[in-house]
């Protein structure tokens, strides 16, 4: 086998594989791609790609049927094969959809193997839509807890929130496709940072340095701008990105990695202006790594993606105890409840209340997928 790639993009589970498969065509060869699933049909989306079929004995080449236990068992069954694809790879970016069986059950296991063989693992995990039902929600929630411990960086993407980014007139049935496309775009922007020949180069090792410790919460933001002042527009869009927002989510991080990519009109000055705008919003006092590159395909479109992490904090259980030292400034209340808090806001940290299979603490407009008019 040839030299392992410097970055490996891995899709886990049905949703993850389809996102990665769609992306693969537009990725440069330096970025490796692999698909992992119990269901062999996923692999048909990308013929010729590196694939690992897990859990042959457990699922017989079919899906897990939404059972997380089955998903983790399948991953454990093929430990050796998984370790092999990760060996020698510095950075692994795993994409998976939580809520189902393979994703919810297998993600933590797979991430664990990758970390053990020495890779820095960054995971993008999507959370099911509210209308997908209670069971998937619960499974997804549980999975994030364990997953966060195994990855160096975990970005949780809520499909509900993504919906707001999509065109108003798109029918609800397209929501899945829309969410995938959005994540794909974000990943592409991120992965593209490491293709050689950048305007301002970044070293994959630098990315590793930011996310040195597992369990550290990760900030991810993505914004796009076009036309006049595209760089600043993109920066502002990134600042307002719903993923980095929510009444009590983390907004200031110590280390930032900012990747600005655009068409031939992108200048270094514009890129740095955008970075400065992003820094005012997200911090990056300890270190900010900048990568800027030109991609002729983009025309006058500029994309800004931001990855951020702070110093790791001691992991505490998901339920936030009110009596905890809330006033300690060096230890911001980072918990995986934060992600939950973004959607459930004030109620993050309290037990979920379900009526008719919906978590009613989540705002009504989100659950009913009502698109709000944009802010002036």
């Amino acid at each position, binding site marked *: 086998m040839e030299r392992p790639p410097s970055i490996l993009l891995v899709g886990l589970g049905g949703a993850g594989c389809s996102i990665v498969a769609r992306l693969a065509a537009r990725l440069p060869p330096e970025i490796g791609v692999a698909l992992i699933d119990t269901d062999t049909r996923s692999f048909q989306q990308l013929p010729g790609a590196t694939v690992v079929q897990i859990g042959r004995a457990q699922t017989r080449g079919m899906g897990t049927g939404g059972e997380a236990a089955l998903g983790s068992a399948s991953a454990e069954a093929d430990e050796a094969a998984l370790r092999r694809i990760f060996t020698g790879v510095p950075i692994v970016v795993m994409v998976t959809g939580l809520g189902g069986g393979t994703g919810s059950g297998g993600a933590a296991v797979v991430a664990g193997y990758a970390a053990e063989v020495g890779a820095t693992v960054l995971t993008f995990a999507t959370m099911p839509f509210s209308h997908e039902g209670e069971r998937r929600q619960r499974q997804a929630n549980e999975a994030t807890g364990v997953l966060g411990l195994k990855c160096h960086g975990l970005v949780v993407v809520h499909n509900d929130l993504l919906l707001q980014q999509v065109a108003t007139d798109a029918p609800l049935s397209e929501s899945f496709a829309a969410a995938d496309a959005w994540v794909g775009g974000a990943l592409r922007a991120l992965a593209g940072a490491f293709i050689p020949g950048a305007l301002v180069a970044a070293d994959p090792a630098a990315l590793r340095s930011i996310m040195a410790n597992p369990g550290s919460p990760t900030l991810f933001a993505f914004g796009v701008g076009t036309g006049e002042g595209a760089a600043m527009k993109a920066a502002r869009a990134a600042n*307002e990105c719903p993923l980095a*927002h*929510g*009444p009590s989510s983390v907004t200031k991080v110590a280390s930032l990695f900012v990747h600005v990519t655009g068409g031939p009109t992108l200048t270094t000055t514009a890129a740095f202006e955008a970075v400065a705008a992003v820094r005012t919003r997200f911090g990056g006092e300890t270190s900010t790594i900048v990568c800027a590159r030109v991609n002729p395909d983009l025309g006058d479109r500029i994309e800004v993606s931001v990855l951020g992490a702070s110093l790791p904090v001691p992991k505490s259980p998901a339920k936030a105890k*009110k*009596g905890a030292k809330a006033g300690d400034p060096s230890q911001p209340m980072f918990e995986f409840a934060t992600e939950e808090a*973004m*959607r*459930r*806001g*004030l*109620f993050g940290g*309290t037990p979920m*209340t379900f*009526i008719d299979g919906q978590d*009613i*603490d989540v*705002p*009504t*407009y*989100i659950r*009913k997928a*009502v698109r*709000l*008019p*944009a*802010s*002036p």
Partner: protein
Amino acid sequence: MTPKLLPSLIAVIDIGTHKTVSLVGQMINGKARMLGFSERRTDGVVKGTVIDLERLHHCVHEVVNDVERSSGRSIEHVYLSLSGPAAEGERIKGIHAIPAHDGKVTAKDVTDAIASAKRLEPPAGRATLLYMRQPTTIDGRAVANPVGMAGKRLEVHFWRVTMEEGNMRMRVGMVNGMSIKVRDFILASHAAACATASDSDKQGVLVVDMGAGTTDWILYYKEHILCAGSIPVGGEHMTNDLSVALRISRETAEDLKIRFGSALHREADANQTIWKDGDRGLGDQQFNRGTITQVLSLRYQETFEYVKKDIMQHLEQLFPGHAVKLDQYFLPAGIILTGGSANLADAAEAVHAIMQLPTRIGVPTFENDSLRKPEYAGIVGLMTAAITDSPPPVRRQRGFLASLKDLFRF
């Protein structure tokens, strides 16, 4: 010369998600006069559930201290308000066969029937908190006073409210920890109704008390409670929705909700732009009013959909097989909306549209002006309900020796 009887002191406490209130009154000439009042923001309760008992205890204790100071009396017994889904209610009945030779119902028959009703065991792990009398029936016919009437089968009905034993112990224990005894529990929705609905209204009315953490509802039919329930959604959810949607802090969201919120969303709202601070100063933000009304109205209406569903479920249980319609024949007085969230603009209109019944905002009648607001319907009603349903016994003159003993209780 008859000895002068001491007028009884009545103290009530309502612990809500947003505020804890206490009222102390005295019975004078058959009417309750207010002696003291105190209010504080509740600490430690979210969505109507206790999440930090210590903070809550401290908060309630401060409220008690304040009301004792403002009324100049010390409280020994208190009535507690009961709200939220933790307090579940159901209809129970006690049956008594009237002895054939007599054919007429006696008072003892009624007592026996009541006793047999109260002997029914509550669901496992739950403690019985209160009974509310419902119409008595003889041979299936509802009668006002069964004594002396002829019939074969006497049934007495109660609306019984139970709660998980642990939860109940926690509440009573918290009050006991302040050296106060709980005299009785009173259903919050019933209290709100006592303050806002007249007896003629109670021929058929739905009273909905929408607070910060919960929405409690109660249905009256022929002056008796028919059924009651609670949804764990309240004003807090509306504020939260707004804060997530606009990406603003909770306090700002609460402020905008009060100033610009509405339970109805109109097309024209989208054209209105509002400023958060209003002074265009640094840090001020612009918002589209349409967004605000859209978010709030969605939540408000959804909540009432839940209320409606809950009511229908209860009615289905009570009258299986009959599809009861919530219309003006059933509820002539329509709907009375009260509680803090009733202050939301266009609330009555919105509810009218959903429930198809005339709706009005219920404001409690009270001697003190400052309490004539929907958010105080609960506490005002508690006092009224306490006097009517379970009045305190006449206070005996404490002997000097007894007071002395009390002194050395330290």
